[in-house]
């Protein structure tokens, strides 16, 4: 099997698993307990916090453990919005291609009377700092722009956006779920006020993540209860998962450059191979792109049948078609970069891992080419395109 869905989740590394195991059977104490056994758990928790902070260029006190990226996004946005509202600022800036954890939270805020400006991301999926600057108003309380997109892999100019926000005194949050462990993060240098990440995207465990919040940024609690996480996130800490996350992030950060270089070469080989399929096009920017992300649209076919047939060939992939998203519309990200519905239905995302081989890349190119050709041959939509009854969107 070739697992090419690392943007969905990743395999845990052995080291991360090993880092977790002692905390199930050996050091299972509650970090809130007073006796030495509990305090040992507390010390290890704080040590992990310190190590995670150092990977991000943050202070340990700025690291809040959450259940994952979605919770961190919710808490960051809700906090910034409500503290903004207290000062009469109820305007938020974001983009049309954020993760639903962001977009649905913004929808909730709209119902509470907030005004949300979603910036256009253009055909390459990138928003510029200048566009953010132009959208900032007197009553803007938050700019939230993702670091890298989960579907099409585009990397936003986060540092430049951060600088603009700092200059204008507006809080800047970035959903870095796809970026953490894969792209360099320095919250101070990049002027990031809040950042969300999730461990299972960089070979850590599921169900654990981080909300980084710069000192001085007011956080409200989503989960009320005990005084854990400086009173900002109640509930007994998921210590084993935190230990696994810390280990996975350290490994990812120390190997980042080498991994990125190798994966970028593999990614480009895959893109080059799939580019040879006629009437298909890469989604997202070719250069400002996550090292492991490949995303294409192919005319005349539908994504779910493509995925099922690739599954039969041992390839795990994903698509933004309506059938796979379980909704009426195809991926909001593909629509945001201007892909028409009929083309967005034929999308394919392959997100490769660090250990992918050239042979696997070549196998994937051959398999996708075969399956696309097979499905086109039974597609009346494709027939109409070939016969000129419908117009092609892409060139050959």
């Amino acid at each position, binding site marked *: 099997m070739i697992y090419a869905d690392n943007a969905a989740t990743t395999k845990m590394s052995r080291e991360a698993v090993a880092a977790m195991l002692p905390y199930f059977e050996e050091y299972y104490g509650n970090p809130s307990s007073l006796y030495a056994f509990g305090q040992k758990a507390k010390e290890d928790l704080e040590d992990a916090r310190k190590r995670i902070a150092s990977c991000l260029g943050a202070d340990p006190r700025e690291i809040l453990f959450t259940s994952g990226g979605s919770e961190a996004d919710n808490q960051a946005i809700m906090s910034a919005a409500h503290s903004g509202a207290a000062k009469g600022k109820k305007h938020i800036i974001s983009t049309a291609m954020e993760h639903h954890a962001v977009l649905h939270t913004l929808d909730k805020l709209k119902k509470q009377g907030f005004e949300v400006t979603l910036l256009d991301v253009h055909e390459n999926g990138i928003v510029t700092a200048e566009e953010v600057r132009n959208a900032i108003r007197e009553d803007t309380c938050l700019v939230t722009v993702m670091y890298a997109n989960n579907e099409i892999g585009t990397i936003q100019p986060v540092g430049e956006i951060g600088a603009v926000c700092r200059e204008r005194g507006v809080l800047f949050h970035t959903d870095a779920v796809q970026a953490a462990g894969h792209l360099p993060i320095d919250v101070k240098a990049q002027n990031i006020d809040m950042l969300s990440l999730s461990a299972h995207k960089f070979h850590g465990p599921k169900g654990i993540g981080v909300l980084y919040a710069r000192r001085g940024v007011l956080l409200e609690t989503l989960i009320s209860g005990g005084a854990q996480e400086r009173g900002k996130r109640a509930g007994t800490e998921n210590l084993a998962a935190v230990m696994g996350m810390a280990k996975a992030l350290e490994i990812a950060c120390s190997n980042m450059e080498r991994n990125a270089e190798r994966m970028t070469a593999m990614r480009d080989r895959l893109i080059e191979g799939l580019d040879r399929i006629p009437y298909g096009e890469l989604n997202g920017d070719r250069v400002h792109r996550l090292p492991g992300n490949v995303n294409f649209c192919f005319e*005349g*076919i*539908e*994504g*779910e*049948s493509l995925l*099922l*047939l690739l*599954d*039969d060939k041992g390839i795990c992939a994903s698509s933004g*078609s*309506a*059938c*796979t998203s*379980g*909704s*009426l519309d*195809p991926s909001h990200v593909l629509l945001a970069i201007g892909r*028409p*519905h*009929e083309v967005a*239905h034929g999308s394919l995302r392959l997100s490769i891992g660090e250990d992918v081989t050239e042979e696997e890349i070549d196998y994937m190119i051959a398999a996708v080419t075969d399956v696309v050709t097979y499905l086109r041959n*039974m*597609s*009346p*939509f*494709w*027939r109409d395109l070939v016969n000129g009854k*419908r117009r092609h969107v892409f060139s050959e």
Partner: protein
Amino acid sequence: MALYSEKVMDHFRHPRNVGVIEDADGVGEVGNPVCGDIMKIYLKIDGDIVTDVKFETFGCGSAIASSSMATEMIKGKPVSEVLTLTNKAVTEALDGLPAHKLHCSVLAEEAIKKAVKDYYDRNGIPYDPAQFPEEEEEGGACRFR
């Protein structure tokens, strides 16, 4: 994959009656590319019997499986019986479809009925329009899901 029954996967992986009948006696097409599925049915009819049927489908796994199953169900049948085919019968023959995929079987039923209507129209055979689905508008709202 547990998403679909074995039957659906069998018809998806090995679709029966895929193709085109160049000199078809009736052709029916439903769906639209914006919504992500199109089905096209070609019928060869000889003395009121469907002697051959082919389909082309643009769509998800269940759309392909529904077309395949539906064509199998009408092959060799008199036209009057073909018109009694329901999406429910197609779904049952496939051992069920997930709720959000039921529309695929509706498309199969409608494509076949449209092909029969085309056959009637071409041959001046009178019929009750009420027994056929209404014409869709291209670019109209997607009806399903």
